[in-house]
């Protein structure tokens, strides 16, 4: 189903509760009554088209309007990416961590040892994710925002100065932007294939569900960066360098 502006906001959440995490990062609170998507977006001062493209790409894995997404200002996309970072670091990662902790504590013998290994692997992954996010927030995003600002409003002198003072180019980031979700895939796989916590399989299912959710989310996030941001920034960089 393609979500449109006049559908009730409540209905899209009832139909797919995973979308709760998306409306949450746009700052939308529950209790929207019978209001449509468009009305809710207006209340929260959100670009409805952008919201629809994001929510549809979460709702339908095949939906990714590359060309249309490229038409949005970068600051809008970057602002959204900041919010997804916040969601990963402050909601999802701690949530899964405490579930794995619970699993370690309720297991014994060999299973407990195996889950401890998974926990260590998970911690290693979260450290990597923290570093990755810190790099984006301290270096990449501020660079993009400044570049866009100058591209739109800067005079020739400012643009020249920016190009000569900046050693960073988006291509460097694209190269080192490895598949951050691969480790989650591995953790899931190890849990499914090689660990059998017979006594607490429900908890294990819960962890797997959460990991899959995070994995999908991060995939969408990376796609947005690789297919929208990187090409768009490259065009701006070229234009500035050719002055």
């Amino acid at each position: 189903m393609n979500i449109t502006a006049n559908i009730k906001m409540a209905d899209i959440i009832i139909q797919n509760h995973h979308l709760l995490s998306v409306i949450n990062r746009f700052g939308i609170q529950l209790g929207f009554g019978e209001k449509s998507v468009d009305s809710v977006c207006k209340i929260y001062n959100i670009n409805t088209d952008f919201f629809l493209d994001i929510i549809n790409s979460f709702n339908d894995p095949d939906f990714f309007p590359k060309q249309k997404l490229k038409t949005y200002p970068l600051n809008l996309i970057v602002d959204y990416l900041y919010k997804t970072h916040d969601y990963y670091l402050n909601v999802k990662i701690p949530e899964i961590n405490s579930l794995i902790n619970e699993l370690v504590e309720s297991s014994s013998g060999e299973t407990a040892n195996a889950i401890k290994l998974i926990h260590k692997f998970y911690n290693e992954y979260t450290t990597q994710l923290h570093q990755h996010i810190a790099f984006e927030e301290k270096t990449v995003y501020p660079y993009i925002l400044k570049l866009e600002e100058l591209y739109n409003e800067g005079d020739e002198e400012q643009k020249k100065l920016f190009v000569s003072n900046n050693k960073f180019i988006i291509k460097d980031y694209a190269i080192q932007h490895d598949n951050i979700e691969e480790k989650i895939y591995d953790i899931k796989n190890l849990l499914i294939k090689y660990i059998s916590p017979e006594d607490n399989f429900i908890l294990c299912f819960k962890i797997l569900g959460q990991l899959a959710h995070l994995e999908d989310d991060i995939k969408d996030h990376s796609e947005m960066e690789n297919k929208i941001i990187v090409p768009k920034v490259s065009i701006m960089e070229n234009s500035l360098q050719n002055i």
Partner: protein
Amino acid sequence: MENITIGILTESYVISRGIQFIISKNNGLSSHIIPNSELCIKNNIVENNINLLIVSDNVFEEPKLLKLYKTDRNLNFGLIRTKQVSLNSMFEFKIDFDLFDTESIIKSKLDKYLESALNSNKLSLEDSELSKREIEILRLVALGKTNQAIAETLFISKHTVVTHRKKITAKLGIKTISGLTVYALLNSIIETYEIDELNK
């Protein structure tokens, strides 16, 4: 244990018999002495279902043995050091005896080999479809070795290492080195202390 047969090939019948005597004390292990005059070692190995060949260092340095080492991937090698020269450390021996080892040391080295051989057999037959070679490569990957280092250790090309790694990932569904390390630990392909030593 019944599926492990040890072949013994030295220049000295006395040494070969001595090793065979100690092996025979280990229940269920069969061994077979290959005469040094044997021209076609390969046939002898196949006919006797030998999967571990214990060779003395002088014999190992002969071209026919070096060739066998490089070409027969299913055969494990053990070494008996009879002279005070060191072989190229690139060679990998599953057991490393010294001519002057006591009986108890020889026995403990044999036991250690058997334990790891049985574990790896169990793994390849029951728990996964990894071949012995793939397990060997997985072990080195899990210990943090680069493709280049693995290629040098196993005398294969870097390209072959990459092919094996792709197969390992396809079979296990594990893509990252950390994931493979956890798998290797879970299946006793490596032990925790080996990782700890690396981190020292």
